[in-house]
């Protein structure tokens, strides 16, 4: 199968929040096994794109379509999308005091992958090896979800969930922000383990190219003012590192 259905297919997506248009026509196809990166400055619409794909109710899709493996996502609520295989690693994961990590992971795996996947030795073994991969100690399981976690712990916990939930599409929103170089290496290891060699696709959203040195993207897209103004291979990330966004911003304005 050389022409596989894209894991994620976005066509002509326009999105607004509180009446302000943020995404102004996005087209994007991610095929199985591909890792794409969206790069852009603050306010370019990166997080809007991530939240919209996941189904945050505050973001209003004005026009366009989002499909997962050829099936429409727009009519589904966030939890239904999650059960279909969409995963979002949050830039700011929320804390839930009193909800134990171990319990939460088991419930989430059961919700998304079914009760069987959350039972017995297979679950325990998967949990153990995933925790080792992202350097999370066992004691973590009895802590409360993101409650009192350091920035690095939060990000590693997001990746742990990614590994256990085995989504078809993983969106990683600023997973590298606030991480030191070792932190980036650890989460990258987890992302590679979850996506590489699978039929899943990934969308990495980032300011900087640092994480892309560890998780090599197949494609890089530059988002400016709600539009993808340039797409290319991994070399585009390096060029951005070198030259910044300014040369592209001029283009974006011209295109208007």
């Amino acid at each position, binding site marked *: 199968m050389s022409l596989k259905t894209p894991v994620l297919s976005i066509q002509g997506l326009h999105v607004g929040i509180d009446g302000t248009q943020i995404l102004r026509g996005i087209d994007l196809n991610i095929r199985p096994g591909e890792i794409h990166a969206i790069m852009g400055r603050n306010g370019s619409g990166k997080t809007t794109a991530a939240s919209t794909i996941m*189904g945050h109710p*505050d973001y209003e899709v004005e026009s366009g379509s989002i499909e997962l493996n050829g099936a429409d996502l727009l009519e589904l609520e966030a*939890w239904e999308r999650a059960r279909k295989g969409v995963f979002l690693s949050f830039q700011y994961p*929320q804390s*839930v005091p009193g*909800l134990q990590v171990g319990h939460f992971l088991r419930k989430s795996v059961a919700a998304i992958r079914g009760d069987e996947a959350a039972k017995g030795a297979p679950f325990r073994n998967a949990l153990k090896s995933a925790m080792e991969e992202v350097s999370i100690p066992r004691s973590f399981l009895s802590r409360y979800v993101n409650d009192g976690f350091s920035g690095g712990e939060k990000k590693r916990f997001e990746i742990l969930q990614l590994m256990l939930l085995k989504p078809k599409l993983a969106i990683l929103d600023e997973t590298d922000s606030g991480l030191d170089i070792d932190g980036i290496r650890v989460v990258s290891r987890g992302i590679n383990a979850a996506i590489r060699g699978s039929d899943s696709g990934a969308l990495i959203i980032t300011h900087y190219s640092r994480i892309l040195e560890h998780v090599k993207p197949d494609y890089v897209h530059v988002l400016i003012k709600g539009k993808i103004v340039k797409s290319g291979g991994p070399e585009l990330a390096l060029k951005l590192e070198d030259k910044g966004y300014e040369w592209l911003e001029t283009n974006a304005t011209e295109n208007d």
Partner: protein
Amino acid sequence: MAMEEAREAVGDYKVGWHDPEHSTIRFDSGLSEDVVRNISKIKDEPEWMTEIRVKAYHHFVDRPMPGFGDREALEGIDFDKVCYFLRSSDATEKDWGDVPEDIRNTFDRLGIPEAEQKWLSGVTAQYESEAVYHSIREDLESQGVIFLDMDSGLKQHPELVKKYFCSVIPYQDNKFSALNTAVWSGGSFIYVPKGVSVEMPVQAYFRINAKNMGQFERTLIVADEGSSIHYVEGCTAPTYSTDSLHSAVVELIAHEGAHIRYSTIQNWSANVYNLVTKRGIAHKDATIEWIDGNIGSKLTMKYPAVILKGEGSHAEVISVAYAGKGQHQDAGAKIHHLASNTTSKILSKSISKDGGRGSYRGMVTVSPKAENCKLNVVCDALILDDGSQTDTYPTMEVANPSARCEHEASVSKVSDNQVFYLMSRGHSEEEALAMIVNGFFEPFTRELPMEYAVELNKLMALEMEGSIG
């Protein structure tokens, strides 16, 4: 006896069915000295109990309503319409079909066995498995523990009851303790001898013992020197009741070095006034813990209290309250540090939803002679929607400067982002809310015996279902 075994045994109690008794005695509604004397006479009580009932009755009549709490709701109580005494067999007159469907559904979804559902709804009056009852009781008896319903306690151990009855909560304490003292029926009497530790939380058969639940139950627990006991009262299942007024009194006495933990979980139907006086007295190096969960009712006013009378004694009150539509939970704690080196901890958590109101009302005092006391008060409120309400009335009266006091209060609302985060992990909005709510209650839930904790979590999940949209 391990909890597993107890549960297994309790799971079996259908075999212990009894034919309901039919000796029905029911008084007309309304209260008078005659009614009070008659209650005592029917129960064949000693003279002193009759007299204390009568005195309490007069005090009840003369005493005004409490000047705090939900005064408007309190004024809604029509004391003339309350029936002050009924033998449990009355309940058999009810029909299963009369129990509201939503309550029956809740029973089903909590996984409460049908036999127990019927008992909880008052459709059947007796719900004991002789096998369970006796095996546990024999176990306790062999250690010298007295474990009886209050009426039997008075009959079999009149001197012990006389010594402690009203010793912690005099009938003059408040209007409702007076009422309870005048007309009490049922409740538990427990005496734990010196040095005896009752290992298992004693809830298994009390949960299924009809005599223990009543409108005006009276419980007295005495833990002698160095003994310990964990008593569990109530059940997470909705207690369907056509009686609108429940007013219990619970007295605890922890002698030197003793440890009493009293856990309650109650879920009243929305027509009930739940006005309860609970107080313990802790002697030297003793510990008293109230673990108190309040769900449902129209109005609950309940402030479990501990008097730290002996040096080095310790008190803990951990409570949760859940106020839904049309409900007001006015709950909290009272602790009096009368002796030196005493310590106390209050953790109060309330949730308000659908216009419900949760109030924390707490009082901690340190007497001038009590040196080096430590007290810690934390009250947290979680509001689930805009129309709901929370308020706190904390009072600290510290008359000794050596005391170390800590007080923290927080009010939080469930945020959309929190819900979205959980939804992105495959949980519906209702499930997400239930996770947040159960997490909030977790410091309480973890103190409960496991099966109660599981039930409470399920119950909160059910409560969240109606809350969307």
